[in-house]
């Protein structure tokens, strides 16, 4: 163990408590109200569509578009998933083939 036990315990507690805080924040803010404000209800409905796109962007944040391989493995694989999901509507299949595509590209065309 790199640091004393008590420091390790405290560190894990801090990370856990802060994670719990971020997850419970919306409930602490709005959970007590009898009727949810219309604005919050509206955001709750539409925000997921924006969030999921941003989350995909966040997952791909480390690709470098200015140098080889220009994130092509990621971009092509995401395109494969989009096409499969658009026409096939089978989530599991889209994920399996998209991931297989990425793993193959990583080993053949764009080795790290």
């Amino acid at each position: 163990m790199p640091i004393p036990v008590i420091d390790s315990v405290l560190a894990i507690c801090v990370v856990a408590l802060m994670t719990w805080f971020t997850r419970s924040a919306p409930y602490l803010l709005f959970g007590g109200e009898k009727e949810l404000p219309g604005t919050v209800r509206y955001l709750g409905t539409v925000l997921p569509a924006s969030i999921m796109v941003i989350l995909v962007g966040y997952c791909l944040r480390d690709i470098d578009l200015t140098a080889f391989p220009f994130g092509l493995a990621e971009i092509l694989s995401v395109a494969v998933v989009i096409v499969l999901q658009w026409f096939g509507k089978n989530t599991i299949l889209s994920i399996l083939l998209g991931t297989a595509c990425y793993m193959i590209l990583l080993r053949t065309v764009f080795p790290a």
Partner: protein
Amino acid sequence: MKTLLYALKQILPVFFTYVFVGIAFGILIHEAGYSLPWALAASFFIYAGSMQIVMVPLLITGAPLYMFAVMTFFINARHIFYGLGFIEKFQKMGWKYPYMVLTLTDEVYSIFCSAEYPESIEEERANFLIALICHIIWVLSTGAGALLGQTLPFDSSGIEFSAVAFFTTVCVNHWRQMGSRIPSLIGVACVLVFSTLLGADRFLLPALITSAILLLFFRPMAGLQTGGIKNADTCD
């Protein structure tokens, strides 16, 4: 039984992500000098993949506690936005309410956002089972990693893409099913603008905040059309 099978089917898209990222964290924290109980406790209490992986180098370098707090806040602040859609839904769940709130990870959130519940399925029970089983898979996977204590016997690099693939399928579903495409387009614009302006590691929070503000600004346009969301009760 039917509900359990339904829950397992919903979990399938994130199963491999959880197993492999979990094993990766287990190996990392084991290599940092922490034994199995530490890995299990961290995964049980924290249950946030990317933050747990970031935590390891902080532990190794003996970073001050406030650093752990600040890093956790900035990496997990996106969760503040996730909860907004589930306030009324989770509140109805009694003793399960706090558990549902604290276990809403990226993956579980995506499952809840894309799930369509057949009439024969009890929605609340299914959601609780999904949250619980995902949590168990995560804890067990990190345990397996800590026990392995070394790299996998086969080359699994790239398997982590399955998370991106799953999130992408949810985006496609939103694009098709939401009455308005404005929310998705706002997401795309925010990613492009803020990742260019602020760089890879700092764009997440500004992008989320701006997308919420823009959605409020476009409410007259987006709001009218979202009356037509196909599976309205899965995400509102």
